[in-house]
């Protein structure tokens, strides 16, 4: 009995690596610390009522952002391990197997469990407020999306200490990811972790399209909608078209692995390139899904801190929508080397070059917005200005990669690695940082420290260039991606070592960001105005943090940049607003079902990873039960009475 148990444990838990034991200890300590703090300060009820069961978009947004920052820490730590291994030739820091696991985890986490939730967090924080809405269209579904993401991410992260991590790359290409290539549970953790959170992303896409199409404040026509909201719409359209492809692709891979089907196998008539095509039909739109909202953020930030209307509103909208559509016609550029012939490669090369045009249009729009503006340089603006040259360079190398014949040289080497890190960090991460710092006062009611923020900014930026510029060169020198070590005779040492220094500088930048947040919480600089930046859109017209119902009176929009125009009208003494009477506000009730359903999905996913039907079936039944429970529940909403609204508004130091 004891021997059986020991056998099981040595297979079930990942063993034999001191790094993993260290992680085990730190995970157990952290869990104990969290449980202790919650119990000691009697916070369990608070956690359950205020957070785990909430359907308020602002709180869901905050939970997304906290999770994303934790994932940024893990993904970043992985990156530093990779860079340490590559710092010197013949390094023995990570074994080749461990190296494979770490780069797989790094990629998956950074895109799916860091960029996506950070983006959804900002959607949740800003979109309903920009629209003048009380919440998203489907608040219950919104909470469910979050919890599916969260438990999907937890499932994926668990593989690190239980069962073993995926090691077939962040997109798990077969045949390597088939049973023949990866007999362990790592790939199944990947499939179910990504699948469960992907379903959540799909629902978020539906939710925000419905919100934007149907819940704009009276008077907010399409041409008066804030640019960030436009970018969210473009991104969500891409989500609802791309994510079902991911769902099917992962499901088919699982059917291959679990039931022995032959979709992507080398035998039985299967076709592994089918998988590569399908996953990139999702994967390419996915990179635009994450970058479009960043473009929206830059547009808001650049207009706010130039004190000017955004230049070329219509062309910006057109460019975003064009990107959202053309992004479906470029997927094959990820594998020109497949050998699909000159005609097919030409089509995808041209479509890839075409998609650079709307992006270029946007760059000029931002530059012209700054031209003759009264520019100020707080941190969100710094990140935006740093983004422009960085993204132009990253975009240009992208156009180089799009030249199909040349791509046969660039394919899968460090030139490509440098390119996509430059657009994903310089485009996406910089944008989300800008957005995070921009909307931070609206989320929490206090500003972040600017001095430490600027230190963090410079360290991040210098670290970025030191890390990735050498990679372009070492890639052209022939260093391919995903190799765990190299010899002295290659001549790659100097560039790799420089790159590692840059990586650690970015790690230092992350620590500065953490210090900035901690310092700002300690010496809180309260935002009493609700409009700390001199904003232009409706989210700045209400107190910080926004009250639960957002707007006591639904705003009526007459202009683009309504709040800015309102301030101009007030200053000119032309305020024509008749004070509307308050009326009770209709709000959705909190619900435990999203959390419970996500736990059931997690249970089912965990069971399917280990092929334990005794666990998977109850999990899936739990999912069905929670769906039915929700359908049969007719008591889902309530009204906030007028006197409570008056009290809340008075507390926020605004008379009603």
């Amino acid at each position, binding site marked *: 009995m004891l021997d059986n148990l020991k056998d099981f444990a040595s297979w079930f838990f990942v063993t034999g690596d001191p790094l993993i034991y260290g992680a085990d200890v730190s995970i157990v300590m952290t869990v104990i610390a969290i449980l202790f703090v919650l119990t000691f300060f009697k916070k369990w009820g608070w956690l359950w009522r205020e957070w785990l069961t909430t359907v308020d978009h602002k709180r869901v947004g905050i939970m997304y952002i906290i999770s994303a920052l934790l994932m940024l820490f893990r993904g970043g730590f992985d990156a530093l391990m990779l860079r340490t291994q590559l710092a010197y030739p013949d390094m023995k820091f990570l074994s080749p197997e461990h190296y494979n696991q770490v780069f797989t985890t790094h990629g998956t986490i950074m895109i799916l469990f860091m960029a996506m939730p950070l983006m959804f967090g900002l959607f949740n924080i800003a979109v309903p407020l920009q629209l003048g809405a009380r919440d998203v269209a489907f608040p219950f579904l919104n909470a469910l999306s979050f919890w599916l993401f969260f438990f999907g991410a937890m499932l994926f992260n668990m593989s690190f200490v239980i069962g073993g991590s995926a090691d077939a790359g962040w997109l798990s290409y077969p045949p390597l990811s088939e049973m023949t290539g990866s007999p362990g549970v790592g790939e199944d953790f990947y499939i179910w972790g990504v699948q469960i959170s992907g379903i959540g992303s799909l629902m978020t896409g539906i*939710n925000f399209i419905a919100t934007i199409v149907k819940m704009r404040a009276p008077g907010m026509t399409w041409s008066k909608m804030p640019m960030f909201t436009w970018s969210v719409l473009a991104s969500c359209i891409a989500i609802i078209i791309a994510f079902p492809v991911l769902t099917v692709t992962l499901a088919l891979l699982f059917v291959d692995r679990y039931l022995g089907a032959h979709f992507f196998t080398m035998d039985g008539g299967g076709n592994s390139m089918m998988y590569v095509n399908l996953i990139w039909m999702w994967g390419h739109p996915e990179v635009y899904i994450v970058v479009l909202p960043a473009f929206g953020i830059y547009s808001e930030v650049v207009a706010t801190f130039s004190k000017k209307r955004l230049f070329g509103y219509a062309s910006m909208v057109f460019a975003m929508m064009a990107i959202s559509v053309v992004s479906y016609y470029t997927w094959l550029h990820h594998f020109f080397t497949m050998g699909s012939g000159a005609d097919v490669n030409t089509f995808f090369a041209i479509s890839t070059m075409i998609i650079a045009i709307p992006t270029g249009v946007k760059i000029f729009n931002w530059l012209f917005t700054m031209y003759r503006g009264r520019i100020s340089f707080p941190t969100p603006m710094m990140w935006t200005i740093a983004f422009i040259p960085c993204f132009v360079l990253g975009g240009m190398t992208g156009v180089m990669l799009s030249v199909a014949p040349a791509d046969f040289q660039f394919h899968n080497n460090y030139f490509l690695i440098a390119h996509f890190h430059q657009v994903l960090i310089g485009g996406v991460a910089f944008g989300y940082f800008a957005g995070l710092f921009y909307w931070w006062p609206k989320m929490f009611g206090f500003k972040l420290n600017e001095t430490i923020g600027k230190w963090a900014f410079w360290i991040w930026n210098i670290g970025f260039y030191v890390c990735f510029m050498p990679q372009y060169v070492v890639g052209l020198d022939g260093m391919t991606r995903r190799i765990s070590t190299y010899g002295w005779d290659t001549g790659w040492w100097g560039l790799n070592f420089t790159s590692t220094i840059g990586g650690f500088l970015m790690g230092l930048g992350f620590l500065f960001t953490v210090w900035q947040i901690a310092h700002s919480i300690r010496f809180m600089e309260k935002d009493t105005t609700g409009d700390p930046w001199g904003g232009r859109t409706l989210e700045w017209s209400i107190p910080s943090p926004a009250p639960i119902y957002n707007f006591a009176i639904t705003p009526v929009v007459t202009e683009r940049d309504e709040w800015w125009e309102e301030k101009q009208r007030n200053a000119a003494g032309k305020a024509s607003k008749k004070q509307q009477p308050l009326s009770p506000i209709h709000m959705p009730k909190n619900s435990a079902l999203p959390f419970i359903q996500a736990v059931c999905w997690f249970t089912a996913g965990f069971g399917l990873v280990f092929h334990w039907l005794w666990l998977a079936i109850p999990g899936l039944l739990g999912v069905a039960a929670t769906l039915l429970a929700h359908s*049969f529940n007719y008591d889902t909403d309530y009204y906030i009475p007028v006197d409570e609204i008056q009290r809340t508004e008075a507390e926020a130091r605004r008379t009603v």
Partner: protein
Amino acid sequence: MTHSANHTNELVHEDGHHDLEELRKFGFWLFLITDCILFSVLFATFVVLREGTAGGPGPKDIIEMPGVIAETFILLTSSFTSGLAVLSLNKGSRQGLIGWLAVTILLGACFIGLEMSELLALISEGHTIRTSAFLSGFFTLVATHGLHVSVGFFWILAIILQLSRHGITPVTTRKVQITSLYWHFLDAVWIFVFSVVYLMGVM
């Protein structure tokens, strides 16, 4: 309950902001787009892998048209009765509505039964999902459609129960309309399954 739901609706109308039930229907249309793409990918996979029989049986060897035609007629009829249910809903007849919904899901259950027996017969003959890429695609596509119909069965059953409890209210009306959309959608998908998998298979 009825009262509170009506009240909600009026208030939202006064608000001039949005109509909750209309919003939910719009959301469901968006979901249908995603489901449409899900099936498109399965169809694409099936078509690409159709020739990959790996020496095993091809479409002509395994398809029994009479059973498939029966399934098709049953599902088409259920789509018609689902339409009759909505007509009863519009007339405000709760009994007619519940009756036609019951007929609809019973026909759906017959469809599932026939399809299960077709697939199980194939498996008992040794033609399983493991045999070849063609059969992997075939089983996955047909079973995904079947799974959708099964979900629809339980979903509409749940709504029948809610109708008997709450009657016809704005909330239950929206629920019936949404499931009806879903059911017609599955019918349309089946037309493609019938054409692409079965008809083109035996031709």
